[in-house]
């Protein structure tokens, strides 16, 4: 299906994006401050990342189950259609550390990721998209963590 010409065009497009718009990965946003993983609250986290006030946005999508049969594995899908997203975060409000995972959004990947996280208890889950001009957009959802099995 793909002709050589298409591929060259696509490759050139990609290279152009990489070279022109944003330097790759770590450079895109500055490297994630490692102290971010020590943040106990959402406020602490945004402070550690030097970010302003987050805004709930329809440009961020978060998919997670309403109920988790086991808090050890909660599937989470995040995505954003906002312009110039450079980083996406998965946060669990009531975990000992709120930041669970950070994904660099280089021009070579879509701003859409799926992973699985641990939740110690029923909590709000956040998907956060950070743009090149430091806008902080988020979506949230409560996930109920249930007691399973025989409880023994």
């Amino acid at each position, binding site marked *: 299906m793909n002709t050589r010409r298409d591929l060259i065009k696509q490759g050139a497009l990609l290279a152009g994006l990489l070279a022109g718009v944003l330097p790759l990965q770590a450079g895109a946003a500055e490297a994630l401050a490692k102290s971010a993983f020590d943040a106990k609250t959402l406020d602490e986290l945004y402070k550690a990342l030097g970010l302003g006030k987050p805004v709930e946005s329809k440009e961020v999508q978060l998919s997670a189950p309403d109920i988790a049969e086991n808090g050890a594995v909660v599937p989470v899908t995040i995505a954003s259609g906002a312009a110039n997203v450079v980083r996406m975060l998965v946060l669990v409000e009531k975990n000992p*550390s709120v930041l669970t995972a950070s*994904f660099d959004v280089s*021009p070579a*990947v879509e701003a859409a990721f799926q992973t*699985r996280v641990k939740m110690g208890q029923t909590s709000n889950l956040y998907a956060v998209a950070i743009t090149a001009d430091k806008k902080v957009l988020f979506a949230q959802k409560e996930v109920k963590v249930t007691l399973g099995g025989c409880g023994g």
Partner: protein
Amino acid sequence: MADPMRIRAQALNGNVVVKVLMQHEMETGQRKDANGKTIPAWHITDVSASLNGTPVFSAQWGPAVSKNPFLQFTIKGGKAGDKVSVQWVDNLGNKRVDEATVV
């Protein structure tokens, strides 16, 4: 040495969808063993991927990513036959790199 990852890289609508399973304990450092001693943290901190040798993806993880982590991301462009390689590094300095061919 850590066991190999399972990487599936599939060409779809001009993109490559990559699904990865990694074998790792992802110990939080918050749990205690039967004798009440804290089990030290041991988890993946950095994940990165490249397409045909060119870096395309990176992520930083804390200990709350689930044990034996699953990750899915989508590389723009790419085609069947391309090589996707994925690497992880953990907080103890262990490393694992595996490669898959896009189908």
